[in-house]
């Protein structure tokens, strides 16, 4: 195995800029790694070898010509297959978009290209980002590099697994209810859900518009911060994008790595600390609190009484938006078409029947029902009220604490097949991550060690107020530096081929 694939993005970028390694060599090393292990992991749905090498060659030319390049120029990246790419298919893990090549790049894609980041390919995901295990991909599940019989989390399991299997040092995910953070937790990687509106959604194929947020995934907090600053910031093509500077998260991550959190108040959310956690997850979280305290932080308990309604509200708002967002997949203009129908309506119906998987259908039906006249107020309307109450809970909690913490997910990676037929059990994976999406605040997952009982990674969730990413990264980096100093980086066992 080439050493290049073990480097962090920051280190790799430095070596490329210093001409010790070429961007083409870096790209090739990762393409080789993908060729070597992805048959077993299945993190990628599409690998764009030629485009990746061409993009890397351009960076090498720029460096050779003495041009200034970005802080991540030449670093390879795995892009979740939910962002449009004009040079690669975009399927969202769905049969209904099989082979669809968008005529345009997402803003995130454009910004990655502008920064000279090498896009290796598109990663697997639960269909239209609905799921917590990547088992709902129409193209087969992704496997967790820590244990190939287990799930890598979801919906962004492909991006997280690519990082853990050293197929890429950087990845992009999207987080609607935990789809960046939960995969990060169960693969021992770092995943950040920025403040809603912090990263443009233009070209991000919508699951639930008011909850979706693209964000960076990496193996270190600093790498995530470097990537965050590339993709973040206002986009006039997205009305919901925040017109404010990107928080200085790289500076915050570097500051945090010095390891001093004195004067910071870390809030433990009472309602996210109750029953239902695997013992090793619980133990890792308690150790994490001690570590934060040791770093100088003051631990305070906060109460967010409406979080308990978060799951219910989420599963009304999300399906409602899904039912409308996914209406456009009707065979009329692109994607799958089942031609047997005698009328346009029949073609639409047969195509949707054939093209959508069971979880997507379940949520479309739920949402259609929740928005129906006579039910709207009781379901969608009521859920929006809960959303407001959860935002208020956060506001009150952030008055008492600079960041909030909880375990990211209730369990470590579970075996493939265990929950795929039990939607409710699957939904519970996101219990701790959903409130931040409902309130639009920021959240991240940082590795907090391995669970004693199964030796699998556990994640610590850190949450911050809207646009409060700097403090979140600072705490994450401090926590990471301290833990790595004690225990070393979490490195998945070598993938069996």
């Amino acid at each position, binding site marked *: 195995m080439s050493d290049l694939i073990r480097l962090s993005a920051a280190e790799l970028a430095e070596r490329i800029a210093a001409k010790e390694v070429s961007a083409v060599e870096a790209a090739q090393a990762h393409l080789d790694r993908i060729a070597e292990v992805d048959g077993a992991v299945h993190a990628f749905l599409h690998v764009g070898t030629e485009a990746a090498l061409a993009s890397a060659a351009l960076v090498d030319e720029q460096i050779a010509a003495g041009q200034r390049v970005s802080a991540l120029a030449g670093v390879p990246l795995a892009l979740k297959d939910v*962002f*449009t790419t004009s040079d690669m298919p*975009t399927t*969202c893990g769905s049969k209904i*978009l099989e082979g*669809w090549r*968008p*005529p*345009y790049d*997402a803003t995130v894609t454009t910004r990655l290209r502008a920064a000279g980041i090498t896009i290796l390919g598109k990663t697997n995901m639960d269909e239209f980002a609905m799921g917590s295990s990547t088992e709902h991909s129409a193209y087969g599940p992704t496997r967790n590099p820590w244990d190939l019989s287990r799930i890598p989390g979801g919906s962004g399991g492909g991006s997280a697994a690519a990082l853990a299997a050293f197929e890429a040092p950087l990845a992009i995910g999207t987080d609607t209810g935990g789809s960046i953070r939960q995969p990060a937790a169960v693969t021992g990687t770092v995943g950040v859900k920025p403040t809603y509106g912090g990263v443009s*959604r*233009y*070209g*991000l*194929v*919508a699951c*639930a*518009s*008011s909850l979706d947020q693209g964000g960076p995934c990496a193996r270190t907090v600093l790498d995530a911060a470097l990537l965050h600053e590339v993709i973040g910031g206002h986009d*006039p*093509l*997205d*009305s*919901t994008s925040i017109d404010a500077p990107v928080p200085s998260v790289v500076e915050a991550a570097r500051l945090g790595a010095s390891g001093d959190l004195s004067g910071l108040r870390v809030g433990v959310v009472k309602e996210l600390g109750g029953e239902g956690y695997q013992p090793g997850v619980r133990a890792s979280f308690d150790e994490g609190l001690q570590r934060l305290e040791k770093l100088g932080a003051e631990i305070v308990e906060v109460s967010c009484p409406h979080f308990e309604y978060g799951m219910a509200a989420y599963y009304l708002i999300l399906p*409602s*938006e899904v*039912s*409308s967002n996914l*209406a*456009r*997949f*009707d065979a*009329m*203009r*692109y994607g799958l078409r089942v031609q047997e129908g005698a*009328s*346009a*309506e029949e073609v*639409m119906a047969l195509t949707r029947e054939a093209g959508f998987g069971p979880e997507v259908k379940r949520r479309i039906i739920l949402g*259609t029902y929740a*928005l*129906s*006249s006579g039910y*709207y107020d009781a379901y*969608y309307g009521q859920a929006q009220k809960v959303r407001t109450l959860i935002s208020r809970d956060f506001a009150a909690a952030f008055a008492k604490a600079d960041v909030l913490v909880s375990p990211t997910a209730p369990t470590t990676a579970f075996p493939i097949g265990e929950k795929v037929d039990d939607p409710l059990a699957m939904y519970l994976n996101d219990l701790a991550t959903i409130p931040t999406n409902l309130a639009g605040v920021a959240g991240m997952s940082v590795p907090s060690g391995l669970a004693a009982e199964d030796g699998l990674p556990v994640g610590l969730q850190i949450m911050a107020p809207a646009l409060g990413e700097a403090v979140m990264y600072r705490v994450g980096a401090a926590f990471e530096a301290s833990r790595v100093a004690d225990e070393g980086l979490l490195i998945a066992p070598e993938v069996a081929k």
Partner: protein
Amino acid sequence: MNTLVDYPSVVERYEPTLGLEVHVELSTNTKMFCGCPTTFGAEPNTQVCPTCLGLPGSLPVVNRTAVESAIRIGLALNCSIAPWGRFARKNYFYPDMPKNFQTSQYDEPICVDGYMDVTLDDGTVVRVGIERAHMEEDTGKSLHVGGATGRIHGADYSLLDYNRAGVPLIEIVTKMIPDTGGRAPEVARAYVTQLRDLISSLGVSDVRMDQGSMRCDVNLSLSPAGSGVLGTRTETKNVNSLRSVERAVRYEMSRQAGVLDAGGEIVQETRHFEEQSGTTRAGRRKETSEDYRYFPEPDLVPIAPSAEWVEELRGTLPEKPWERRARIQQAWGLSDEELRDLVNAGALDLIEATVAAGAPAGEARSWWVAYLAQQANSRSVELAELPITPAQVARVIALVAAGDLNNKLARQVVDGVLAGEGEPDAVVESRGLKVVSDDGALIAAVDEALAAQPDVADKIRSGKVQAAGAIVGAVMKATKGQADAKRVRELIIERCG
């Protein structure tokens, strides 16, 4: 088949209640939610982009000019402007709707509760209440080929053109208009006419009913006279001219009276106006009522026009067209009929602008309704489309007044301007059209003509001044029409004196 009741009998026994819904396509340069052009009549599917095609990942951004136009229409209709409002999604499947939902304002329209005073031909004023005016996007166009009806059901195939998809529309909905009695058809027509003129004066729409940039739906119900019980209404669509508005109301009144007289019940339904026969027919009956599952559009932020902006826009409202007409009629001393002719010829603006450029009203009017109207007619264009400006017409009038041109020459100058030869003065120069005012040259021509016709010269000398005409003609011919005929006559008498 239901029998129609003759109109006087309807009016004697029933009281109509009217309601009008008018859709106006705004003439913004770009669409409601994207930057695509809105030009009418372009090649199909050439004015489209990811957003108006509803491609996965695309997002809408509100066109500020469209909001401005909506507010100006609202203010002109004496509406209140909502300080805050959201767009909603109206969900239904149809091939010409790229997203299978229409982005529209639902329960939070931007303009509410206004009125317009409508003047009927005999001077009676009816105040029509405006319920709301709201923004929405247009759909694409379907052309159903084959089958008997030109409708989607039974068609062999359908062609879809998305150039119109996303063009901004304003829907203006009246309150119920009661107590119009037998004048309901006239009131409906007068309202739509006046609304058309009002919107035209704002310069925000072409309001061409023939091109579909203004569309009208007529709601009508009858109640037995004096009963005070509101009847069931029908909604008649496809009413595509002012005359059709009047005919559709009248027909529905007779038809509904026939149904009621026969002891039947009016079905609440959508009907289509048939231009040829002047009748209405029932649309396809739906087995279940449509549930559009409205919910707030999560991809857009609320519209929140500031009070300052609204006041600034109020300041841009022009004089109401009917007030302006009254003013002009008085100032120019026109009869009702003369005014109507000017309005119908589309000459009023042009004449007023010509007057504003310094021409006397009488001459300005005579140029536009006579010579220029002929030119427009022979070219089959609207008066306003002639390639001559009011300022140019005013200049020609000024040249005539100064004696530099006679009427015949002035028409040639106008021909030159219409032929694209430049400003009037440049045409005079290049065509050499100036009146010959050099007496020396004229005297020579007069003497020559007198010498050529000695018998005529003798008659003049003997006092038969009317005989001078022949000499004038000869001189005019000799000078190719460039002489001032009046001066020529004076010189002839002088030379014969």
